[in-house]
């Protein structure tokens, strides 16, 4: 069994490298096709042919695109992520200053949202049809259906502006104590939880209910098992596959999709870096960010796939 999973992991890592390469090519191709290059975006209204030419030369954009890509790729092979076209800073440095922030925010959010979502999902599956189920399910849908920027703004208005319990920005200056971390993270985490809990919760509920309909559950019931046991020991293991995937998808959102939260709370994360990169057509930056997201996503889904396989002996012993 371990050999099987190890084999899967090795294969996945190999394929992942290919995927990453594909992503970089794709991103590069898109940046190449998109109207406007880094120099034009940088100069904006100030663009004149001479200024453009000068800036292009400075940014290395005068080199033909494929060559630029190969050069960048060569750099990657040597562990050099390249230089950001707009800032002329090493991309590695730019990313390194932001990535930990993003990971921290994602981790804290995951820490809260996953247990809450799974608990709610399982509980509403167990008591399906009850008022609890209805309130929880409808509530979850209602909460995601409120645009993220509205939730975040509302939270700021209430907790920061009105009550002044929490800071309006999550990262103004150095954070020293744990209490400060909690205060700073409370609202972003709350907003993000609102977005991602629903998917995990609903999928957990659906998958568990699906299993509760399976014939073997009848036997479990006839053994005198409590509903809790029925779900935790029987339905859940069989539902792990889809649940793990929903969790992986939701969590992958926390890396690249948090742009709105980063904007509203002025949190210096990597999503904003990438969106800026896209706006400025900063190819090395965008590529690195895209590859980071891709890698994060691949790690998450691989973990989800492994969970699915571990949970299903038929797949495990194929």
């Amino acid at each position, binding site marked *: 069994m371990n050999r099987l999973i190890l084999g899967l992991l090795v294969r996945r890592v190999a394929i992942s490298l290919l995927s990453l390469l594909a992503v970089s090519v794709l991103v590069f191709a*898109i940046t190449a096709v998109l109207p406007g290059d880094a120099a034009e975006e940088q100069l904006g209204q100030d663009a004149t042919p001479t200024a453009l030419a000068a800036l292009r030369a400075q940014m290395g954009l005068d080199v033909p695109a494929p060559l630029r890509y190969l050069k960048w790729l060569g750099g990657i092979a040597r562990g050099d992520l390249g230089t950001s076209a707009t800032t002329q800073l090493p991309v590695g440095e730019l990313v390194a200053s932001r990535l930990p922030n993003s990971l921290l925010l994602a981790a804290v959010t995951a820490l809260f949202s996953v247990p809450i979502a799974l608990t709610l999902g399982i509980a509403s599956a167990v008591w399906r049809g009850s008022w609890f189920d209805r309130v929880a399910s*409808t509530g979850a849908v209602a909460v995601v259906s409120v*645009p993220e920027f509205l939730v975040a703004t509302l939270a700021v208005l209430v907790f920061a502006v009105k009550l002044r319990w929490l800071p309006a920005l999550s990262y103004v200056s150095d954070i020293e104590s744990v209490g400060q971390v909690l205060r700073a993270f409370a609202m972003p985490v709350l907003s993000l939880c609102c977005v991602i809990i629903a998917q995990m919760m609903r999928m957990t509920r659906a998958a568990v209910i699906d299993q509760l309909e399976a014939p073997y559950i009848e036997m479990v019931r006839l053994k005198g098992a409590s509903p809790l046991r029925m779900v935790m020991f029987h339905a859940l293991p069989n539902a792990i*596959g889809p649940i793990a995937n929903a969790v992986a998808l939701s969590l992958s959102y926390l890396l690249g999709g948090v742009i709105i939260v980063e904007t509203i709370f002025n949190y210096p994360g990597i999503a904003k870096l990438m969106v800026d990169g896209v706006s400025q057509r900063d190819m090395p930056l965008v590529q690195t960010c895209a590859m980071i997201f*891709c890698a994060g996503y691949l790690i998450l889904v691989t973990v989800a796939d492994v969970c699915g396989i571990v949970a299903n002996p038929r797949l495990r012993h194929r």
Partner: protein
Amino acid sequence: MKNTVQPLDAGTAPAARGRLFRRFSGFGLSGIVGLLLLAFWLLAALLGPAMLSRELAGSAAGEVFGPMSAAHWLGTDYLGRDMLVRVIDGARYTVGVALLATVLASGTGTTLALFAVASSPAVDATLSRLLDTLTAIPSKMFALIMVAGFGSSVAMLVATAAVIYVPGAFRIARSLAVNINALDYVTVARTRGEGTLYIMLREILPNILGPMLSDLGLRFVYVVLLLAGLSFLGLGIQPPAADWGSLVRENIGALPEAGASVIVPSLAIASLTIAVNLVIDNLPGRAAREKGAR
């Protein structure tokens, strides 16, 4: 829905009423609430724009962020336009475009997932990795390339939103389908020599439909919100038309005063998505299947 409003023939009345009752009772109370809400918005989307006077729509001379009043039932927006008109107008886009994009995304994702699972492991691996790669493309970038490449139109908007959500739907559907694919009855179909398509659609699909529908319900919400983001990027619906998500975004300035112009479209989104999810949760077919009998 349609045939429920037909006048009941006197002779068959009891039977028809019984059928009617059963059809609705199949939905359950919350299902009916969902259906009514959904019907309301569908009607609003279809008939609303024709019914509201254009006068109101054009009146930009009104007060900015005006409160609810007899002249403007839902107040006015950030340019002093009537919110009622804006919301009803927006229904067309949100209901139509979002529903279409969601169905496309979930449909394509599920179909691909079924195909991946029902054909060889090699196809499965290839498709899975390809779609994984697709997810890594920043959606903003993707949207930009779509505008750049194809111009912005409603069709393009639908396509973009659909493509962005295909990989997610694929993942979920695949994770459900692999489990079903390992079961005996699929083996039976295989020994019969059934083609991939049949195995996908008839053997596996019905058994993953429950979770997939609930996924679809959520994906709908995401698409509605994505539309707001995309129209902010300048993709798709062109002003003065606006979908509800964009209405919320446009009027977010009214939030501190809890203005109707931001609350109403938010409520509209919430009610529509809740309705969709209520209906999905209470589909009579599902309830019946869960009980094991028809």
